[in-house]
């Protein structure tokens, strides 16, 4: 996989600007407010535990990848950086799930 493309020239001049950052801020704020609301009124809204966990996990992952993708502009960086980060993230998720199942089995 040859990757000797042009060097050092920031590629994101045209995409990200102040309006985009502000828009992202609003979206992130709304998601956080939703998380707070779902959690706060889970009883009155009658949300089961499973749905709560699923919804909150999805929302936090969306926020996670929004910040990583756009604020850290991983989306515009070379493929190697993406592989490096995604590999580390998935591997640690795998090991964390492994550890949790092993330790919960232990009681």
């Amino acid at each position, binding site marked *: 996989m040859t*990757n*000797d*493309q*042009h*060097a*050092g*020239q*920031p590629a994101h*001049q045209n995409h*990200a*600007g*102040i309006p985009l*950052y*502000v828009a*992202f*801020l609003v979206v*992130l*704020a709304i998601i*956080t*407010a939703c*998380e*707070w609301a779902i*959690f*706060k009124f*889970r009883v009155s809204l009658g949300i089961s*535990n499973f749905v*709560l*966990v699923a919804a*909150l*996990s999805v*929302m*936090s992952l969306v*926020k*996670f990848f929004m*910040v*990583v993708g756009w*604020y*850290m502009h991983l989306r515009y*960086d*070379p493929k*190697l*950086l993406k592989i*490096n*980060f995604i*590999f*580390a*993230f998935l*591997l*640690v*998720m795998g*090991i*964390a799930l492994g*550890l*949790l199942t092993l*330790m*919960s089995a232990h009681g």
Partner: protein
Amino acid sequence: MSTHLETNTGVDNRKFAMWTLIGSECFLFGTLITNYLINRNRSVTGPTGQEIFNIDLTTLSTFDLLLSSVAMAFAVYYCKHKKLRPMQWSLATVALFGLFFLGFQYYEFSHFLHEGLGLSTNVFGASFYMLTGCHGLHVAVGVMIISTLLIKSLIKGEAWFNDDVVEICGLYWHFVDVIWIIIFTVVYLFVYV
């Protein structure tokens, strides 16, 4: 050093190193979060999450960190476009909100201590303080770095527009915010799970 050295991946060495450090920190916080999830229900005595967490305060501190993250994005943008005043204001906002976050955390910790949850009270407290403490430490280091950038920019003014360094600090700061997003969900919102 390697300022704008022609590199194979087109990414500056220091930025690549920061991303590798972020990969490594993923494992650091991954282990801490796993340790918290394992230990949160194993306490024998003392208060646990359900009795002690105050979700409203924590949501506020999450907003606060979100704002500082956006301010950091502004700072990086202004630095690339050589706008001195806006960059300095953004950096100041980042540092300020970082301090607010640390203030929230200080208040939360003293409140928990007052409620009787010390480091050695129970295993839940120990793993909770280790996780949020380690994250707080990273926020403190971030605030220190950003304030040194701000001071350097105030002294040097127009002569100093090192967008590489500001961008790398931005990466670090955004990562610290992203970790808080996960901690906020896993620790505070999964309390009844």
